[in-house]
């Protein structure tokens, strides 16, 4: 979809492609990211990281490093023994979780390469890095296991004493008995082992943190590359430092992308706060790209044994998934929640599947931490379900479109209970609509004819579909609590209309590229009837914004912006009361429209919101019982999640000689409910597709048998370049949710969730004449070539 931008704001801005208000500072280089921060007297920090994947830490000799010119001090884990290990804030519900988490610096043992063991504080970054090489550690290497299936096998090295067989948790959902029965009764059963490989999120800005400590008040200020600064403060003060929450201020400056990897509390954030106190100077650390690859969280990394039962006509009757989820050497902040709630509970996909069962074993291995990465669990679920649909189609000789249509939850079945969501239901949907639209754009029948012709010429063209449904705006809080989430998931907003009529919105949500400053302002400007430029959105600083859980899981529109909307409604109500008082009429007669409140039938005699705000702020003459000022704070806790859906279609050509896959076309038809800013939504969809396609074709983290990360730089880890993609053809249907008054569902992850299986299905479709029914990702030329050679043999 090509969307033209709109310059001149009108009263109704929801749905308009407004140019982002945050962009001027970003396109001129004026925006200040973490590494652009310079504090008076600031020292620099470098961290010594383990080169062993599993080892005991013996003596650490730091004298030579400490004596190096420019070095202020050197610290090891023992210097921070008084600090608690980091918390694991989401543990899978209904089963025991054996939790081991990182410390600011490890003291006794490391369980993955890249774990921090010592830190140098120096006058310059160069001096700090130079001195790292002078630290000597007596390492005692221990046996290593990196593969999750090998880790649970008998005789595997034991990584944490408490976690027998390296199992973090053994979680199930669905109905095992019914599923086994349905599988036994099915006309056909397809079985497939699926590897959903480990990915590295790779925001272009790496992580970093800076901190200062004020001894006279005991107050810390910590700047960090975070998607959730309020949560960081809560976890650091209440769980790690054991101090009052009011003694710390956390600020996320401009953040250069996150994709989930900047949600979590990391050892380095704790370390910077502690170091600032120890050395009595502000300190800053910025991750190198290599550190980002070894020490920041990874995503996905599932091995799934999938069994699907179907009738001869393609009706799916049962789905069973037995999944090993690799969670790394220690647990990141919400690691156990991702492969459970956000994965297992979404295994019905867009289909009516009467019997589903899922078992997930979270597993410790000697690899980097694994946590949410864009889509978080839902891409893994969608990959399993959408591969299942194609496997069933192949087995029965049916068209993959036909299998999807036969199993779709029909539009009149909503709200729909897939029986897996622990009480929640899919809100609204019309899956056939996005499928038909996508097929129409791509010209499905014509393509099949073209494919047939190409096959006769020895060319391998393929088409792949992915009809997904996903879960956004994850809430309600009580439901999330029941899922093991250790907090709430509401969001907050404060809206103030100043005396001058200018509006300031503060939100507990956080923007790191999503455009909150524009989209939230669009909602406020539309509802209040004020010019867009009169609305300022402030975020990402625990001082001055109400508590919020942060930005992830496509929740800022469906939760955070709804909190803003709620506040504005209450501001309007008060404005009506004030206008009634000013116009000497009854509030019931007051209509609020386009920034004016007037007595019904007399639109010319009303008061503007600016006049009302002025009167409210002066407070000279207020209605009985009303306080001065137009100011409201809302806490919005949704009654349900929202469930966006859509169909993505990929067309590929495979070079059978080399195995090289070329993405020829990519069509996406999403339904994310009401769209606040189509420019922003299209951008989210594009970016998501790129990451999803990248998983299918190029990206994959690789560890060797000793636990060394082989893909530890952008030289080895293949994030895509511009020329890897054809133009992305993006369209949408609009089925508003009934969960919130805006009708918005969330759009941040649809692309990532949908794209991966669409592309894999396309490649497998291309190679159907060779009898190939599955290839594990990434579908690099080598892998595809090997599969072709094997099939020919």
């Amino acid at each position, binding site marked *: 979809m090509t969307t033209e931008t709109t310059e001149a704001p009108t009263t109704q801005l929801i749905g308009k492609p407004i140019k982002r208000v945050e962009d001027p500072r*970003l396109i001129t*280089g004026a925006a200040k*990211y973490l*590494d652009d921060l310079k504090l008076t007297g600031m020292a620099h920090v470098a961290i010594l990281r383990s080169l062993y994947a599993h080892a005991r830490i013996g003596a650490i000799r730091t004298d030579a490093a400490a004596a190096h010119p420019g070095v202020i001090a050197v610290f090891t884990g023992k210097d921070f023994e008084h600090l608690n290990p980091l918390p694991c804030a989401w543990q899978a519900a209904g089963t025991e979780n054996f939790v081991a988490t990182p410390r600011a610096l490890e003291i006794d043992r490391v369980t993955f390469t890249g774990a921090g063991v010592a830190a140098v504080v120096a006058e310059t970054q160069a001096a700090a890095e130079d001195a790292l090489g002078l630290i000597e550690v007596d390492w005692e290497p221990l046996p290593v296991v990196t593969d999750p299936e090998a880790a649970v096998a008998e005789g595997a090295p034991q990584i944490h004493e408490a976690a027998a067989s390296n199992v973090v948790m053994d979680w199930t959902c669905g109905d095992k008995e019914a599923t086994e029965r349905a599988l036994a009764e099915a006309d056909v059963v397809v079985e497939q082992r699926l590897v959903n490989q480990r990915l590295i999120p790779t925001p272009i800005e790496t992580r970093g943190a800076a901190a200062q400590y004020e001894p006279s008040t005991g107050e810390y200020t910590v700047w960090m590359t975070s998607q959730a600064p309020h949560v960081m403060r809560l976890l650091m003060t209440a769980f790690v430092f054991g101090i009052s929450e009011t003694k710390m201020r956390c600020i996320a400056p401009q953040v250069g*992308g996150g994709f989930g990897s900047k949600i979590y509390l990391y050892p380095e954030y704790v370390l910077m706060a502690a170091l600032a106190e120890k050395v009595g100077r502000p300190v800053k650390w910025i991750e190198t*790209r290599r550190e980002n690859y070894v020490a920041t969280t990874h995503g996905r990394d599932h091995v799934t044994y999938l069994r699907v039962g179907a009738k001869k006509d393609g009706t799916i009757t049962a789905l069973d998934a037995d999944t090993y989820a690799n969670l790394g050497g220690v647990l990141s902040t919400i690691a156990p929640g991702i492969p459970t709630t956000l994965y297992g509970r979404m295994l019905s996909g867009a289909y009516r599947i009467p019997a589903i069962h899922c078992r997930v074993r979270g597993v410790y291995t000697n690899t980097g931490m694994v946590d949410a990465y864009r889509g978080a669990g839902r891409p893994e679920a969608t990959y399993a379900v959408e591969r299942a649909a194609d496997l069933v189609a192949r087995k029965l000789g049916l068209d993959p479109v036909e299998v999807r249509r036969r199993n779709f939850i029909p539009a009149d079945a909503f709200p729909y209970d897939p029986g897996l969501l622990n009480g929640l239901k899919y809100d609204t949907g019309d899956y056939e609509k996005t499928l038909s639209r996508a097929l129409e754009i791509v010209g499905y029948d014509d393509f099949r004819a073209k494919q047939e012709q190409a096959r006769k010429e020895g060319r391998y063209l393929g088409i792949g579909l992915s009809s997904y449904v996903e879960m956004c705006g994850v809430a309600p809080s009580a439901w999330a609590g029941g899922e093991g989430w250790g907090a709430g998931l509401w969001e907050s907003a404060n809206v103030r209309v100043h005396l001058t009529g200018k509006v300031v919105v503060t939100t507990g949500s956080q923007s790191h590229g999503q455009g909150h400053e524009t989209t939230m302002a669009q909602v406020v400007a539309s509802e209040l009837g004020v010019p867009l430029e009169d609305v300022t959105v402030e975020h990402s600083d625990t001082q001055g914004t109400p508590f919020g859980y942060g930005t992830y899981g496509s929740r800022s529109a469906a939760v955070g912006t709804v909190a803003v909307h709620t506040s504005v409604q209450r501001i309007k109500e008060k404005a009506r009361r004030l206008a009634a008082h000013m116009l000497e009429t009854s509030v019931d007669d007051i209509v609020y429209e386009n920034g004016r409140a007037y007595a019904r039938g007399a639109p010319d005699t009303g008061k503007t919101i600016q006049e009302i705000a002025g009167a409210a702020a002066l407070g000279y003459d207020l209605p009985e019982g009303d306080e001065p000022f137009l100011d409201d704070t809302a806490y919005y806790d949704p009654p349900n999640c929202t469930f966006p859906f859509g169909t993505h279609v990929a067309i590929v050509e495979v070079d059978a000689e080399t195995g090289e896959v070329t993405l020829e076309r990519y069509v996406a038809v999403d339904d994310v409910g009401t769209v606040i800013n189509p420019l922003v939504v299209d951008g989210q969809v594009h*970016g998501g597709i790129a990451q999803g396609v990248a998983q299918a074709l190029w990206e994959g983290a690789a560890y060797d048998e000793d636990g060394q990360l082989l893909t530890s730089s952008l030289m080895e880890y293949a994030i895509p370049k511009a020329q890897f993609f054809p133009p*992305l053809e993006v369209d949408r249907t609009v089925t508003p949710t009934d969960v919130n008054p805006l009708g918005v569902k969330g759009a941040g992850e649809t692309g990532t969730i949908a794209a991966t299986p669409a592309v894999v299905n396309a490649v497998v479709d291309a190679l159907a004449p060779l009898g190939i029914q599955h290839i594990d990702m990434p579908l690099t030329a080598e892998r595809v070539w090997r599969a072709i050679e094997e099939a020919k043999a």
Partner: protein
Amino acid sequence: METVALEVNGVRREAQVEPRTLLVELIRDHLGLTGTKVGCDTSQCGACTIHLDGKAVKSCTVLAVQADGSSVTTIEGLTHNGALHPIQEAFWAKHGLQCGFCTPGMIMTAAELLASGGTPTDEEIRHAIEGNLCRCTGYENIVRAIREAATQTAGVS
């Protein structure tokens, strides 16, 4: 310490640097122009792209001392008297950025392409920015922005 004298965004600047100092470190840490970014340590990402004597280069692959006597333009120097460069306008209009971290480098690379004149095809645009990585946009709107700016500047000249 070595003395490096160069012109940055039209202003003569001088700094004392260690011989190993990279041009990007000179620009960011010594001259305080933090619009130029660092996103990797292997010269892959292109976030540090600037113009050195009119050519787009990754300033992490040039030593500061090598730039002695040169003319450097950074993202801060692309705006003239407060007016955005057409490529900046186009990135804004076409939503060619999300988190903004790759944007300065991406814009400097695109500006060099535009300076060469003509209206590049999409394929040429995609090839021209292959040394600049973006993780947010899928490049779709970046390509549209560059195409838009190319069309506009070609119309002007």
